[in-house]
């Protein structure tokens, strides 16, 4: 267990971040003056309709995209590029087909200093166990179901022990039942591993099930509109009526910010 808590979760602060995308025909104002603080070990969901820039914001936090103005700080250090303390889990699992399951989980460990081959093997085993796939360590990616792929992607992101986990609609492509299982797993992992997690989703229910705080963004340009602290006890069940009522309120708020005539 010691290994799991070795690295403290980080605090992430987004300060006055703006982003434009310059296209041949138009300049799109993607994010307008976003400020947001995510505390150590907090689980925050960014919710908004498509086009609100939530994925761009996540990319900026990851260091994959540079903002046009403003800055992101991870533990008061400015983010200048991607770093192994802030790992991203993408919507498509983006697993490498030429590696087996264990090889994928091991991928990020090769670049970590001070690990022996034995350490790496142990870390891979621990993480496969964490996501319940220890029996599939030698399976190939195409042999896995969608849910299993996302589990491997989760294990791959967690194995290098990042301080922040950024999730970009990781469950959007899964069927409802599989997604529910993964909500339970993610909550369990978050409680044992105490990572700072930021998840981007368009589903208010998913956000309320997982997060301590739901941040609502509105489109064109992307702005932070409202924040909803979620105080429900964990583990949460997406079918809980109380949870559904909160999600309903968020969805209602979301509708107010969608420009009329443009479908969400």
């Amino acid at each position: 267990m010691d290994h799991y808590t070795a690295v403290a979760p980080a605090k992430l602060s987004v300060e006055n971040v703006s982003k434009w995308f310059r296209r041949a025909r138009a300049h799109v104002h993607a994010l307008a003056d976003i400020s947001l603080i995510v505390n150590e070990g907090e689980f925050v969901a960014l919710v908004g309709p498509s086009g609100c820039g939530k994925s761009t914001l996540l990319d900026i936090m990851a260091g994959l995209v540079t903002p046009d103005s403003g800055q992101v700080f991870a533990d008061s250090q400015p983010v200048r590029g991607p770093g192994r303390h802030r790992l991203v889990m993408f919507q498509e699992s983006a697993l490498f087909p030429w590696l087996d399951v264990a090889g994928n989980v091991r991928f990020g460990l090769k670049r970590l200093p001070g690990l022996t081959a034995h350490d790496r093997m142990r870390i891979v085993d621990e993480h496969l166990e964490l996501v319940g796939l220890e029996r599939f360590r030698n399976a190939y990616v195409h042999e896995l179901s969608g849910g299993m792929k996302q589990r491997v992607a989760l294990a791959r992101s967690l194995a290098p022990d990042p301080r922040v986990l950024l999730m970009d609609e990781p469950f959007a492509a899964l069927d409802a039942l599989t997604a529910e299982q993964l909500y339970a797993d993610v909550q369990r992992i978050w409680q044992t591993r105490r990572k700072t997690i930021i998840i981007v989703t368009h589903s208010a229910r998913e956000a309320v099930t997982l997060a301590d705080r739901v941040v609502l963004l509105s489109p064109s340009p992307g702005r932070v509109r409202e924040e909803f602290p979620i105080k429900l006890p964990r583990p949460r069940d997406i079918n809980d009526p109380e949870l559904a009522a909160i999600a309903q309120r968020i969805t209602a708020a979301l509708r107010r910010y969608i420009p009329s005539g443009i479908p969400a």
Partner: protein
Amino acid sequence: MKRAVPVLLFFAALVLIWHLASVSGRWSPVLLPPPRDVLDYLIDAGSDGTLASATLVTLKRLLIGYAIGIALGMPLGLLTANSRFFHDTIGAVALGLQTLPSVCWIPLALLWFGQTESAMLFVVVMGAFGSVLIATDTGARSIPPIYARVARTMGSEGLDKWTRVILPASLPFLVSGLKQGWAFAWRSLMAAEIYVTILTGFGLGHLLHYGRELSAMDQVIGVMLVIVAIGLIADKVLFSPWERFMHRRWGTGLK
């Protein structure tokens, strides 16, 4: 085994039809020798070492030229995939050369290098390198961008990214490019050996050429069979393991 029996029957029937056509007397045995004669030639030329030494000469040229073609084509392909400038320049040249049948290099090679091994190698290299370059370029460009993003967030950059992500991700394209390069190299070498007599080595193409000169149809057909056999063996030895690896891992081409 169940698959092998009908396949063997098919080829046995083919040889039988050939035999019957040949003994029917409709065509001159000089133009259509019976399979038996071709087999005799293969046994004779096989036992006196003619075939073995010609095969060795040809394979040596082929492998060296092909290796040079890969050594040039692969790095250049990675370069053209990653730089618009090199794509527009080197990439365009490679594409242009691809449209040129490799036989067309023979006159130039002869004038530049004379009737030497270098001329042979040159033709093989020109045949192989373009398709390897283009396949590598296509492969590196066709990688889903998400792989590069994953690599970046995991701290894999530079050489590490190339060896652990870009190259394996483009494996399907690389293998088909290498295969095509091999086919082009093989074709260009045969053309070169048939057209050009050189004193430093007597390859399979030369055997074919002299078969024609001597109107020895058993030799012509026999050598053609050897050439086909080498092509098939090369495919099995050089490329099948990679293809099996890919099908197993990517889950493609199953069944």
